[in-house]
Each structure stands twice: as C-alpha cells, then as structure tokens.
C-alpha cells in the first residue's frame, strides 16, 4: 500500500462527486502532504489528473485494485520558497556514474510512482529521525523533485556530521533515465 497522509473514500460516487469531495478533503492537508482518493468512477482518473493540474496540485498517479482506483495527489506543486544554498551539487546526468547512495527525500507516494533504481527513500519530514539508517563514510546524493527539498535535506545531513553529501540538480522532474516503480 502506498503511504498517504489522508484517505478519502469516494467509492460508489459518480461524477462530479469524486472531484467535489477531493476539493473539500484537500483543504485539511498542509502543503506537501499526500491525499489518497479511493474511487470506483472510472472517469475519475482523467478527471483528477486534470483537476490537480488546473488547481495547482501534483497528481502522482493511480493504482487499480479490482474495481477500486486509488489516486494519489500531493497538495500544492510549489516547492518551498527558499533559495538553494547548499554548495555541493552534482548534475543529474552524472549520478549514474558515481559511487555511493542516492537518497530520495520526496514523499513515499512520489517515490512509489517512479524513482531511480537503487535509490533509498526517506521523506524529508522523516529524515531527522532516521539518520542512523545512513552511513557517514559513504557518499550520499540527495534528490527530490526540483532540488529544493534535497537542498534542505543536504543541509540537515551536513549539520549532523555527514561530510560527503551532494545535492542532485535539477531533480526528478528532469530525469529521463530508467524509472523503477513500487506499485
């Protein structure tokens, strides 16, 4: 099952109800959180993707299980408004030829719908409490969607004694290599 911050049950509802319910439900989330919408309306897949695009959320993808469609939407597609300040960066193209760990700090659902093979997932919000999973001796290449969350993550790692940390730019939005999915 893909991890989400909130679940919305819109099963059995016809158009336009899944959209109307989703609009209401997403107001309870904070920016960056992920909403799971459960629906049986077959049209909801195209509708929710279009809706998210119109309103400014990030449609991550849909998983079908039997008659139920599980849609995943991340609230607000805008990354935090901060200047990237972490100095050690590597271009995305270089990442495959490097040794070390690729650390993907996007939300678990974003990771599930497509990540670089072998990348480890620790969402930005969990990073501080999961530092012991990482090896300080190894190079760590931090990646997210557009390079902003990974910038913050790289700073956090450095502050905690990791010295071989690099921010991968621009991020998964520009990645055209192989994609692994966990769905």
């Amino acid at each position, binding site marked *: 099952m893909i991890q989400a911050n909130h679940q919305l049950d819109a099963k*059995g*509802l*016809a*158009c*336009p*109800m899944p*959209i*109307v319910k*989703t*609009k209401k439900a997403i107001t309870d989330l904070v920016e960056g959180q992920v909403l799971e919408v459960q629906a049986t309306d077959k049209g909801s897949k195209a*509708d929710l993707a279009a*809706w998210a695009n*119109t*309103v400014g959320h990030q449609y991550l993808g849909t998983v079908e299980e039997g008659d139920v469609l599980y849609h995943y939407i991340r609230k607000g597609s805008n990354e935090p408004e901060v200047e990237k300040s972490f100095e050690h960066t590597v271009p995305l193209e270089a990442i495959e030829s490097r040794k070390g760990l690729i650390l993907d700090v996007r939300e678990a659902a974003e990771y599930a719908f497509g990540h670089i093979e072998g990348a480890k997932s620790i969402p930005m919000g969990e990073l501080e409490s999961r530092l012991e999973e990482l090896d300080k001796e190894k190079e760590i290449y931090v990646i997210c969607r557009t390079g902003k969350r990974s910038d913050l993550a790289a700073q956090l790692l450095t502050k905690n004694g990791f010295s071989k940390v690099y921010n991968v730019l621009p991020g998964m939005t520009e990645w055209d290599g192989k994609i692994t999915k966990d769905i």
Partner: protein
Amino acid sequence: MSNKVAIIAANGGMFDAYKVFNIATAAAASEKEVEIFFTFEGLNLIHKQGMHALEMPAGKEHFAEGFEKANVPSIPQLVEMAQELGVKFIACQMTMDVMGLTKEDFVDGIEVGGAVTFLEYAKDAAPTLTF
C-alpha cells in the same frame, strides 16, 4: 486565462439539469467562479417543487434504472452542492413575469436579473456554455 465560467440553462428536463449542474459543480470545485442564468424552461431546474420532478426525454425513461445504478446524486443534492461551492444562480426576470413566478418559488439564495446582468458577467468568461 479567464477564471469565470458562464452557463445558460434554457431547458427544463432531467438530462438538461445534469448537464448544467455537473459542469457547474465541477468548475466550481476547480476553483472557477461560476454563474448560471436560468431562463424559460431552465427555471424548472431551481424551482422548489419542479426540480424534484424533472422529466426524462420521451422514450428515455428506461434510463432511470441506470441513474440509480450509477449512484448519481439527485438534482436537489446537486443544486445544494453547487450553491455550497459558491455557484451563483440568476433567474431571468422576464421569464418569471411571463410564467407568473416570484423569487419565493425558487430555492433560496438565487438572484433575479435580466439579460444584461448575465451578459455583463459573461463578457470575460471562458467558456460560456448553453444547455
């Protein structure tokens, strides 16, 4: 890009009602400003009693079962939802005069206006739809 959707509801059957209110609620849920101008038979769709007894087109009555099976919300439910989402209803004054109807015959929260009221709103709306 315009953030306004303007809809003219000029027909009073059940299918017409679904076309109008589905598009209207979907647009409102997509954070559009939505106004519907109800004129002639379209007034049926917001008439307190009329909206509970909208007819299917002749020969299409068998779709009633399909509506039930698809769990489609009722028209009064859609009307309420549309208003909750901020869709503005304008009833056509001229038609009301012709049909001898007053504001009290319609669901609460509507406005009454003339053609110019709607045209003023619709002049920079995209899309403008007629049902």
